[in-house]
Structure formats: structure tokens, C-alpha cells
């Protein structure tokens, strides 16, 4: 297997809506930025792997031929990956495989999604239109008719059983972890929500599904992001600071069958993490990683993830928050970008945005978000809304 590096990243700010650009134009913006970052042109690209999560959201089925045309990529191979809201990590897995196998030397990976063109004419609200349309992403037979929202599912299935077993995370720990991400977003020029909220503000915000409050729920945004992957030989020609993908894994777990073992656990996170660590040779993630960007679709899941990713023993995730370990100044900063609750979130894009953030951290180009780089390794994680599909990658500067 050949070594694979990230040689270019392109991002744009998270916004509640890009009414002045179509999804195609967002895709072109990030592609242009990624090409500039890598000092490449369209003709250098061998192959394109798209992450486009939902056709209905963009009022366009089969978007691949349209975006391939818009980006001027005629003649090049293109595939589109969809895997719930973690399609971007599955796309990264596919793009990595193309380069590692020798099928391509330079692969472009654009992730594009708009959601806020959805509208409810009944309530005259974009939010209602989005949530209604989005709801058919859950199981339309066995969930959607009775489920008031994805945060409810995540809270009932993972956060509450964990609290019942271990007594944590406490409401105070949830408040602190969410406040951490909001504080981090204040210095992210691309973050969508910049409000300085305290742990108390988080705890006192509107209850969505106890103990999850409004500030613990992810945003929903329009956004796009792009990466360029290259083989070792090409990467060394292109840049002095290639960021190597030293570990990559995807995994899956139940989303329609529940048994005791599944409650309070993010099993696919543990599984993908274990595989990615093995591939990258990571044995003590808390001390061998410099930074992590993970999917805090609800804050409780971020805290459970500390445990599933082996930063601490089961039940101790809340203590990492109390002890400041996951703060920007801590031993292992988690979500210095602000994460999904404050930077922004849309299915199919967030994980690649996180990857771009970690690349910039490892290049020490993260501006106000920069954390100390000691071992030169970072982790990116993304999952779909039900946490059934998970992708994890270890990025490394060597």
C-alpha cells in the first residue's frame, strides 16, 4: 500500500444559509481554494470523489454529473459517496484507497451540501422545512413517525443510559464541554455561531431532551470543503508540509435493532478508533495526539467519545472536562474549531472541514485556533446522525 498525504485544503465559512450561491458554486469555491493551497490546476487532478449527502435538500437528484461539469472535470473518473452524515469520511476512505492502491496519484475530494433552501410554506420557516425534510433521513417506518428529532434519539440511546450506569456526564460537565466549544469558536473566523456562553448559560438554555439543552445541539448550515490527496512521490513534489493519512477506518453499528449492549455506548466509534490507532501505531492516544476534531452532534456524545476513543476509562469522560484536559490549553484539545455546536454542521461536509482544521493545526497555520504541536499527530472523527456509521482518520506531520 502506498503512503497517502493531504496536500491541499479548501474551506469557506459556515453559514446558516448561502442564498447568494448555489451548491455548485460552493463546490467550485472550495475546489479553487484547495487547488491554490496545493498550487495545482484542474489538469493535475486524476480523479474526483464527491461527498454529497442529500439530493432532496438541494432539489437535485443525481448531482454528480452536474458538479463534474461545473468544476471542469470532464473525462476524469468521478464517484459520489453517501453514508448518512458521515459520507465525507467514507469518501475520504475511498479517495485514500484510490491513491494507496495506485489507481490515481492525485485525487480531489469535494464535500458539498446545502440544506436551507428547504422551506415550510405552512409555518413560513426554513428551520421547519429543513427539519421536516431531514426527518426522512431517519428510519421512515420505525423512527420518523414517533421521533421528534435526532438529538432526542442520541440522548435517549446513548447519553441517558451512560448517565444511569456511571452517573456521568453530569449537567455541569455537559455545560462546561459545550461552553468550551462555543469559546473555541470565538477565534474561528469561519465559525457560524459566535456567542460566549458559560456552562450555566448552556445548562439554563431551552431543554430539548433532558439533559440535552439547546446549546448542546449541533447547528445546521450550508457549507462545502475540499481536500486534495496525493501519493508520496507527488506529495513531496507538491509541498514541503505534506500531512500524511497514517490511519483511516470506517465502521458501522445497529441503527434499527437495540439490545442492552448498544445502550450508552458508541460502539462504531470504538471499533473505527481501534482500527485507525492500529494502522497508525497509536498506543496512548491521550499523550500521542496533539488535537482532535470530533462530531459533537449533542455534547453528551462528545464526552462519551473520549471514552470510546480510549482517552480514559469508561465513565471518566466527564472528568476530562472537569480537569481541563480537553480545553485548548489542555493535554489534548478537542474541537478547537468550535465543533458542530458552534462552528457549524451539515451532513456530508463536517468531517472534511474537521480534517482541514487538523491539517492546518499540524502545519501550524491555524491562527487563533492553533494548539501546541508536540508529537505531530491529530485525529478526525465523524458519524452520521444516529451514530451508526463512523469514520476516523489519524493525520500526521513527519
Amino acid at each position, binding site marked *: 500500500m502506498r503512503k497517502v498525504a493531504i496536500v491541499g485544503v479548501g474551506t469557506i465559512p459556515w453559514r446558516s444559509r448561502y442564498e447568494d450561491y448555489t451548491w455548485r458554486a460552493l463546490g467550485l469555491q472550495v475546489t479553487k481554494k484547495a487547488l491554490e493551497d496545493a498550487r495545482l490546476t484542474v489538469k493535475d487532478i486524476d480523479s474526483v470523489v464527491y461527498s454529497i449527502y442529500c439530493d432532496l435538500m438541494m432539489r437535485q437528484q443525481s448531482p454528480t454529473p452536474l458538479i463534474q461539469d461545473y468544476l471542469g472535470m470532464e473525462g476524469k473518473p468521478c464517484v459520489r459517496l453517501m453514508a448518512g452524515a458521515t459520507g465525507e469520511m467514507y469518501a475520504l476512505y475511498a479517495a485514500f484507497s484510490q491513491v494507496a492502491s495506485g489507481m490515481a496519484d492525485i485525487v480531489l475530494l469535494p464535500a458539498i451540501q446545502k440544506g436551507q433552501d428547504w422551506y415550510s*410554506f405552512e409555518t413560513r420557516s426554513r428551520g421547519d422545512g429543513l427539519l421536516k425534510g431531514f426527518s426522512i433521513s431517519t428510519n421512515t417506518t420505525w423512527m420518523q413517525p*414517533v421521533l*421528534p428529532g435526532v438529538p432526542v434519539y442520541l440522548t435517549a440511546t446513548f447519553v441517558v*443510559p451512560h448517565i*444511569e450506569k456511571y452517573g456521568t456526564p453530569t449537567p455541569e460537565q455537559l455545560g462546561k464541554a459545550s461552553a468550551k466549544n462555543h469559546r473555541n469558536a470565538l477565534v474561528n473566523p469561519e465559525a457560524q455561531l459566535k456567542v460566549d456562553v458559560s456552562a450555566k448559560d448552556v445548562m439554563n438554555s*431551552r*431543554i430539548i431532551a*433532558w439533559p440535552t439543552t439547546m446549546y448542546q445541539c449541533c447547528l445546521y448550515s450550508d457549507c462545502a470543503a475540499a481536500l486534495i490527496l496525493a501519493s508520496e512521490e507527488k506529495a513531496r513534489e507538491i509541498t514541503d508540509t505534506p500531512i500524511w493519512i497514517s490511519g483511516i477506518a470506517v465502521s458501522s453499528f445497529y441503527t434499527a435493532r437495540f439490545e442492552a449492549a448498544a445502550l*450508552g455506548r458508541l460502539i462504531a466509534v470504538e471499533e473505527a478508533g481501534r482500527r485507525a490507532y492500529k494502522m497508525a501505531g497509536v498506543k496512548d492516544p491521550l499523550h500521542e495526539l496533539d488535537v482532535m476534531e470530533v462530531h459533537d452532534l449533542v455534547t453528551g456524545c462528545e464526552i462519551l467519545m473520549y471514552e470510546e476513543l480510549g482517552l480514559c476509562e469508561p465513565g471518566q469522560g466527564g472528568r476530562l472536562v472537569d480537569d481541563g484536559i480537553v480545553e485548548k490549553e489542555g493535554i489534548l484539545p478537542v474541537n478547537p474549531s468550535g465543533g458542530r455546536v458552534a462552528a457549524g454542521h451539515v451532513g456530508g461536509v463536517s468531517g472534511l472541514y474537521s480534517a482541514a482544521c487538523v491539517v492546518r493545526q499540524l502545519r501550524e497555520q491555524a491562527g487563533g485556533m492553533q494548539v501546541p504541536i508536540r508529537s505531530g499527530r491529530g485525529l478526525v472523527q465523524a458519524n452520521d446522525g444516529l451514530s451508526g456509521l463512523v469514520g476516523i482518520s489519524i493525520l500526521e506531520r513527519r
Partner: protein
Amino acid sequence: MAEMKHKKEKFFEVPYFYAGGEYLYSYGEISKFFREVVENKRLFATKCVRCGKVWMPPRGHCPDCYEETEWVPLSGKGTVMSCTYCYFSGMSGDLIRFLDLPYVCALIKLDGADTYMLHAVAPPEAKLGVVKTGTTVNVVFREERTGSIADFYFVPET
């Protein structure tokens, strides 16, 4: 180049109703579940003919054995295995049209089934702590049933 320059011209928006928005959907191999709900107010699960595991929600095939399953009736009683109180609903889940917030979203182990079902528990007064893990519940069928899991919900057993 390529900083996101905001064009100052006003964007132009139009309403659009996509053509694929209506379905006449077949429940296929699990049709019996919904027919029994609509016609007889009864809940059925499926049992693997090989390993004997009882699947709820029902499945036509056992994912462990790849064997077909057979239908088994349930009493409609069950136990809450995990739950949360919902105070906000932005989605189109049909049940929100029939139940007042807050209600309880729960994973319920129905008596006789081995796996849990995600559903709603609507106690008369949904105060925190009224319904919790271990609470026993009973199914209630709504009068107007259309062939959806929103045709029924659960209440704490009295």
C-alpha cells in the same frame, strides 16, 4: 481570487414542489404488522425459525441466521429500557400532532420480544421522573389508524 465576495445583487427565490413527494408505499414482508395495528389493534413481532430470537421491530429475516421469521403476537405490555423527556419538536414525526409536549421518547422492550423498539410514552402529566428506566408501560391505540407506528403510543401501567 476567490475570497467569497458577497455579490450585492439581490438573489432571486422561487417556490418549488418536487415531483417525487408522494408515495403509495408497500410494507412488503412486514405488512402483517401494520394490517394488525389498523384492523385489530394488536402488536406482532417476528421470531427467527432457527435461533428463536424475537425481533421487534419485526423483520422478514433474521440478520444473525439469514433465516425467515414467523409472526408471534405480543400483549402490548413492555418495559422502558432508556428514555428522555422531549420538550421540543421541530420534525414532522406524525405523533407530535396527537401528543402534547413534553412527552417521553423511550426504548421499550415489549414483553416477549428480545430487541427494543423506539417509541413514545405519554403519561397524563409528563413531569421529569414519572417515566424512567424500568417503568412498565401499556400500548394505547389511537382511534384513527392509517398504518404507521404513530397509530399507537404507550402509557405507564396503572
